[in-house]
């Protein structure tokens, strides 16, 4: 049974559909990457999966169980973690408090998971008593991902985790995503840096105008001349 499956999903804001029948399947332990031009509905799809957007048609299944239109806190309970692209930390809370909030529903996890998150992101340990609002963009992204990991999700949704980061941090984040995945967490992420993202993707979904244009393994999409020409800038 796939970890996450989207079947012919339609949805949008205020009656206007942005998603016009998106299909996606991610097995456990896979990295799925959504790429595509601006306005293709990439982030919208991620939000639909996390219940931040009404799905008007189609269904989304987590381990075979329908989850579309469930509120986010229910989805966290069911093992889904979400890292928004912007405003993804609590600026006045310390790094440690930010992480603790991620385990709000599983307070028993805090000690064990804090240790694990600090192992994934060693810079956070040194800054644990600093307000997250004082950190650099890359460190904030680490806090945001760490926060989502605290609930021990089965699948982690990342919305453009490398947006606005320097190349150095970008590589670092991609490395961490691989490691998190290797630790047994399924990943579904939206990325602007399509080439780098597809390079680590087990599955790639190229969206355009709210529909699947190409769906294949990351390597196959990178090798496909048509994908390269239209979506990866040659």
């Amino acid at each position, binding site marked *: 049974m796939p970890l996450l499956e989207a079947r012919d999903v339609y949805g949008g804001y205020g009656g206007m559909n942005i998603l016009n029948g998106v299909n996606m399947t991610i097995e456990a332990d896979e990295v799925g990457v959504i790429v595509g031009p601006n306005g293709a509905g990439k982030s919208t799809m991620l939000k639909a999966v996390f219940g*931040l957007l009404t799905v008007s048609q189609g269904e989304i299944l987590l381990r075979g169980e329908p989850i579309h239109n469930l509120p*986010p806190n229910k989805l966290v309970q069911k093992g889904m973690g979400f890292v*928004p692209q912007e405003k993804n930390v609590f600026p*006045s809370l310390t790094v440690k*408090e930010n992480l603790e*909030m991620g385990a709000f529903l599983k307070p028993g996890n805090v000690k064990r998971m804090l240790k694990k998150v600090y192992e994934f992101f060693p810079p956070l340990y040194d800054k644990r008593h600093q307000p997250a609002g004082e950190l650099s963009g890359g460190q904030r992204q680490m806090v945001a991902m760490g926060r989502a990991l605290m609930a021990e999700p089965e699948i982690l949704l990342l919305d453009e985790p490398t947006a606005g980061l320097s190349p150095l941090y970008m590589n670092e984040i991609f490395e961490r995503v691989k490691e998190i995945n290797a630790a047994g967490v399924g990943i579904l992420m939206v990325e602007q840096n399509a080439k780098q993202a597809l390079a680590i993707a087990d599955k790639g979904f190229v969206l355009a105008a709210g529909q699947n244009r190409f769906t294949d393994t990351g390597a196959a999409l990178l090798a496909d001349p048509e994908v390269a020409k239209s979506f990866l800038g040659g």
Partner: protein
Amino acid sequence: MNELVFFINNVLIAGSVSGSIYAIGAVGVTLVFSIMRFAHFAHADMMTFGAFMVLLLTLAFPGVGGVVGLPTPVVMLPLAIALTALLAVGIDRAFYKPLRAHGVKPIVLVIGSLGVTLMLQGLIRLFAGTGAQNLYLAGERKEIYRIALPIEGVRAPIVITEPQIILFVLTVTAVVGLHLFLNRSRLGKAMRAMSDNPDLARASGINTNTIVAVTWVIAGGLAAIAGTLLSLDVTFKPDLSFFLLLPIFAAAIVGGVGHPYGAIAGGFVVGFAETLAVFNWSVLLRPFRDSLPEWLAQAGNLAFVGTEYKIVVPFFILVAILVWRPTGIFKGKVI
């Protein structure tokens, strides 16, 4: 030295009393703002409601205080806190929650809270009448402590009343308790998280409805403390707290809206500004009378404003802060 005692009695103690009450009130206002992003105008009447509950309970069980050696109203306070917290949650469920569910603009909630103000005031008048009532009933009376200073030539004692001492103790307890709650407890941290970023709080699995309810419990409980201690210090009146609305909001804004520590600081700033503004400084000048110019030495009343204009002081502070430092002493959430 007598002049110094006069200063302690009329500025230090009086300022701390109003400062404490404003601070406790302003914390509630600021917490409600930081979680629900609207100015809750019915807050002052929740204070009156708390005092009203104490009045009812004291009437129902007179003389209970004698058993434990405290004034009966003070013994009834915990129960009144619980009832007022319940009222606050109930008001939210009945009036504000449906509005939030419709996704209205904050100003609609503000106007809704004005309606709640009128309703609460009417309700209290209906049962308590319009006149002033003493919370000390059935032979109990306000203890007044006169502490004579063991210094030669000092005749005037420092005067402090029992409710004032209880007020100071409860203020310190409330502030310390709130600090521990916000920084140590899971719910308190979640409350700060929601104030920072409600969407992310939801995405973290924090049940925002619970946080809203907890906020009302704290705001209501604190309001009951402030209202009751104020009524003990003076007397209970249905419109007693309503006139505190301006200084309380001034305190919350001075401190930085949405910032609990700011609200506490703001409360004391406004409280002391008020008492200093109406304080008759000529008393302090008396010892130096011989070396002062005649116009100053002869002046009978050197207060900045008359007592009857006390209410303009917070108003002036409010205007000044909004002009020079709109985010308040601590950087609050910009309105």
